[in-house]
Every structure is written in structure tokens, then in C-alpha cells.
């Protein structure tokens, strides 16, 4: 084995108490960093997900209210080839009344394709039945179904504001997660809605979800549009949420930085003491002819060993903390209060930072060791 490495190892194992103390310090620092970092990013993901997880990130509509528009093929081509877009939902919406017996309910009928259903997460939100496939099939919001006592495969009439009436077949019931939507929304195929509302091939809106929600504004401004259309994105209407998230991120980073500084100070001071404790040994090794570079490597290896062991322990401890948190902090249904992702990149980044800090902290003793003159040790006994 490399000589400075084996000396470093022996120095550490010989002073077990001291080494354990530093390792514990690093481990606690790393675990706090991992726990806080992952918790806050889990919290933010959760918040973002509730806000825009099943809502459009970008919406295109006509500048004039309630006006339909035609989708040009160049627009469509540019959307389908855009890698940043997750869903491109072409929608034909219209209001009307759903009539049953002598009751009626005001509804918003939304005609769309698979992308629209996916955007609103209909497949996983179906309470009963299936999604509309053929002409004049609909799924209805759960409250609407309750209010009108709708049952599966029942035929129901819808009257548009221009007084045309059409019979639809209820093929599914969805829970959209928001009461006001459950009360008013019904989904059908794009073709059915276009026919019913006499839109021909026109649309009322195009809704998008993007892969990185935080880039929604940039992506929105890069999308191809005709001059009669306007575009909006979720960030415009959620400025407060965004600044809240930002504040959270900043305080999370601050906590992490302070933990890091505390860890570095701790390691530096303990390693500085060890070089004093070991100066006699270093002096002897120098009298025996060890090279200065090798003498300083002893302390760098000590820093490296402490950093690596401390970080590994810290990762274990941090994951343990998160496991405990997700196990004990739960919703009534048993799911985790805040779903946390084990972000491997963040975890290894924290570990690398800690190892780097330990190395950095050992630079001072390493330099001292390199500069130590053997005669001082020999003369003073």
C-alpha cells in the first residue's frame, strides 16, 4: 500500500475517538444537507404538481373572446416536432345545458383527443367506465353525475347555447380533483364537439404540458402562432407561488451552506490539532528521509478518508431520516405527506461537496506538515 496512505490510516485508527468524532460531524452535516435538500425539493415538487400537474402549462386561444380559430399545418408540425412539449391538446370547447327529466345543469363540454385526456390525467381519474372513443360518447365530472343521477351507458341530451340539441352516451365518470370542475365539466371526442357546436375544423384552444414546468414561459415565447392568437403560461398567473418557492429554495441553500461551513470549520480545527499532535512523528519521518510531498499526503489522505467515510455514513443517515419521515408523516390514507424523490444526483453532489470540504480542510495541516523541519523536533526532544 502507498506509504502516506497507510500512515494516514494508522494515525486515524490509533486515535479512534477523535476520528469517530470527525466522521460523525461530517455524517451529520451530510445527512442534514440531504434531508433538508430532498425534503424541500419534495415539498416544491408536490406543490407544483398540485398546481399544474393536471392543468395546462401553456394555453393558446383566440385574441377575441369565444372565437374559434384554424390550426395551420405549419403550426401543428412545429408543435409535434418540439421535444420540450409533453402534451399538445387540441380542444373544441363550448357551454351548454345537460337535460335530464325536468332537471338541467350548466356544463362545459370539452372536445379533445388522447393528449387532452392525458393532460387532465383522465385515465387515472376515471371513477367508472372508460374514456370517449367514438362519436357522441362523453365522460362527466363526478358531481355532475351525482346531481343528475347519471348512470353508466345512459343517454342524455345536451343543449348548446345556440339551441341545438344532441344525445350523448355517458361512458365514464371522472373525479377531476376540484369540486367546481367536477360539477361542470364533461369530455367528449374532438370530432363530436366540433360537430355539435358547428365549429367545422376549428378549435377554441390548444393546451400544452411541457417537460420542465419552470421553462414554460421561455417555451411559450418560442412557439409558432398566427397573428389572431394569444398565448399564456401558468407562471404568469402564479407569480406568488413562484416567489414563495424561490424563497424556499434560497433558505434551503442557506441552511445547506451554513451546515457546510460548520463542518469545514470542525474538520479544519480537529485536523489542525492532529498535525500538532503528530508533529513529532512527522519530524522523525523527515529525519529518516521522507519527502515533503509524501509528508503532506499523509494529512490529505486523512482528510480524504474522513470525508469518504463520513459522507457514506451521512448518506445512510440522511436516507434513514427521510424513510422515517415518509413513514411517520403520512396522510390519513397512509400515503406520504410529502412524496420525496431520492435524487441520486443531489445525494452524490452533497457527498462530493463534503469530501471536497474535508480535503480542503486538510490542506492547511498538509502544508504545515510539508514545512515542518525535523531539527525542531530533534532539538526539543
Amino acid at each position, binding site marked *: 500500500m*502507498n*506509504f502516506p496512505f*497507510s500512515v494516514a490510516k*494508522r*494515525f486515524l485508527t*490509533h486515535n479512534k475517538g477523535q476520528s469517530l468524532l470527525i466522521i460523525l460531524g461530517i455524517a451529520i452535516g451530510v445527512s442534514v444537507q440531504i434531508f433538508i435538500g430532498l425534503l424541500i425539493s419534495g415539498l416544491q415538487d408536490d406543490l407544483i404538481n398540485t398546481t399544474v400537474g393536471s392543468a395546462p402549462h401553456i394555453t393558446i386561444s383566440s385574441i377575441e373572446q369565444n372565437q374559434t380559430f384554424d390550426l395551420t399545418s405549419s403550426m401543428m408540425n412545429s408543435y409535434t416536432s418540439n421535444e420540450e412539449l409533453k402534451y399538445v391538446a387540441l380542444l373544441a370547447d363550448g357551454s351548454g345545458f345537460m337535460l335530464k327529466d325536468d332537471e338541467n345543469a350548466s356544463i362545459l363540454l370539452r372536445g379533445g383527443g388522447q393528449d387532452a385526456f392525458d393532460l387532465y390525467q383522465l385515465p387515472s381519474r376515471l371513477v367508472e367506465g372508460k374514456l370517449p372513443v367514438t362519436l357522441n360518447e362523453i365522460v362527466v365530472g363526478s358531481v355532475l353525475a351525482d346531481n343528475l343521477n347519471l348512470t353508466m351507458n345512459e343517454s342524455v341530451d345536451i343543449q348548446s347555447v345556440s339551441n341545438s340539441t344532441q344525445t350523448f352516451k355517458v361512458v365514464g365518470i371522472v373525479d377531476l380533483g376540484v369540486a367546481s370542475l367536477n360539477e361542470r365539466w364533461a369530455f367528449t371526442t374532438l370530432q363530436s364537439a366540433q360537430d355539435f357546436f358547428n365549429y367545422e375544423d376549428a378549435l377554441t384552444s390548444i393546451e400544452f404540458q411541457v417537460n420542465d414546468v419552470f421553462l414554460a414561459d421561455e417555451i411559450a415565447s418560442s412557439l409558432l402562432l398566427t397573428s389572431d392568437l394569444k398565448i399564456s403560461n401558468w407562471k404568469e398567473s402564479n407569480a406568488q407561488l413562484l416567489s414563495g418557492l424561490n424563497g424556499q429554495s434560497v433558505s434551503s441553500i442557506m441552511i445547506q451552506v451554513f451546515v457546510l461551513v460548520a463542518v469545514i470549520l470542525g474538520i479544519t480545527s480537529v485536523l489542525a490539532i492532529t498535525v500538532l499532535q503528530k508533529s*513529532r*512523528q512527522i519530524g*522523525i*519521518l*523527515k*529525519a*529518516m*528521509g*521522507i*519527502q*515533503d510531498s*509524501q509528508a503532506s499526503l499523509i494529512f490529505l489522505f486523512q482528510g480524504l478518508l474522513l470525508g469518504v467515510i463520513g459522507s457514506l455514513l451521512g448518506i445512510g443517515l440522511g436516507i434513514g431520516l427521510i424513510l422515517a419521515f415518509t413513514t411517520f408523516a403520512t396522510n390519513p390514507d397512509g400515503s406520504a405527506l410529502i412524496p420525496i424523490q431520492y435524487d441520486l444526483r443531489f445525494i452524490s453532489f452533497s457527498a462530493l461537496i463534503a469530501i471536497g470540504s474535508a480535503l480542503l480542510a486538510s490542506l492547511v495541516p498538509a502544508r504545515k506538515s510539508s514545512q515542518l523541519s*525535523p*531539527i525542531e523536533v*530533534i*532539538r526539543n*526532544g
Partner: protein
Amino acid sequence: MGNILQLANVSKVYGTKIKTQVLNEFNLEIEEGSFNSIIGQSGSGKSTLLNIIGTLDVPTQGEVIINGISTQKLTKKQLATLRNQTLGFIFQFHYLLPEFTVLENILMPYRMQNKKVTPEVMERALHLIDVVGLSKVKNNLATNLSGGQQQRTAIARALMNQPKIILADEPTGNLDSDTTDQIYDLMRSINQSMNTTFLIITHDQSVAERTDRIIEIKDGKIILDVQKKP
């Protein structure tokens, strides 16, 4: 046989404001394979002389030539190599590393060259341990030894890289007279079997009298230099 060591006009002055001249134009030649002692009162400059010879300290003026090489122009790196390969030190205090065993301490001058411990090297270390009579305690930590055993470990360690010169500064200064005799006999037998040159500082008259050459210094100068007839 030629000179393994030569000092030419070596002076050493300590301090800048208040100057203490410890060595004054010191000249000395030591023959290869010889067994020498340096005596003199406390404060006469013996340790200073030995540390300068051992390149642990630098002379204010003059030249130290070891094994034909002037140490003046050597880099720190070259000096470290010289200490590792050509010189062996034994001090009044054993200066063993307390974290390591007897065997590990003895192997240390070899291992710090970052070379692999081959079976031959291990055999040499074990032989040295045998020579100094420590086979039974070779796996003891250096702290779990008697004073005499520690000093013998230090001697074996000094011999590990088969140096040309052993520099010993009062190696028996802390030991009782029986142990002193043993250590002296040990150094003598190594001198004879390995042709290692010894330069031993001692204030023990009986030790000095058993060396081949006695050099006495006072106020940084040689005042007596007697060579025994072989």
C-alpha cells in the same frame, strides 16, 4: 580505505543579534568502516556537529561531503533521499512512532520510498530484529517496550536501508550501564559485520574508550583526536 565523510571549514553561528559561535572552522575526516566517538562537555557543540553532518541542520559556512557528494548544492528532495539511503540516525530518545509495531517501525525507512516490501526485504527486517534480539516482541507497539528494547528498535531501524554511516547522539544516555554495554556491543558487531561507519556522541568514558578513535571537542574545536592502533 577512503573517507566516507569530510567536513571542511565548517562554522555554525546561532542567532542574528546575539551571535553564538558553536562551531569554528571545523575540519574532520572519517574513514569508511571506522568506529568513532565524539566526546566533550555539555554545550561544546557535539549535537550541532552531528545534526549538520546528518543534513538536519545547515552550516553557516563550510562544506560537508558525504560519500563523495557535497551536500551544499543538494535540493531538499535530494537531501531527503540522502538521509534515507546513506545515513542512519540514533538519538538519545528513541523517536519511534508510537502508532506502529516494532517490525513496522523498522520497515519504515524502506517503505517511505513507496517500494513494495518483498520477501527479501521482510527477511532483512526480521534478521535485523533477530540481531538486536527483539524477535519475541516484534509485533508489540513501540510504546510497549522497555527503554533498552526501544533503543535497539531504533538501531535496527537506522540499519534498515543499509546506510553507509550511522550517526548516534548519546544513544545510551538514558540507559543503565548493563543495557549500555549491550547496545555498545551491538553497534560494534554491526560495524564489524556490515562495515557500517559509526559516529557516536557519548559522555560515557567507558563507551568512548572502546571505540577506535576518540575525538574531543571544546568550544567548537577539536582539542584531542586519538586513534587506537589496530
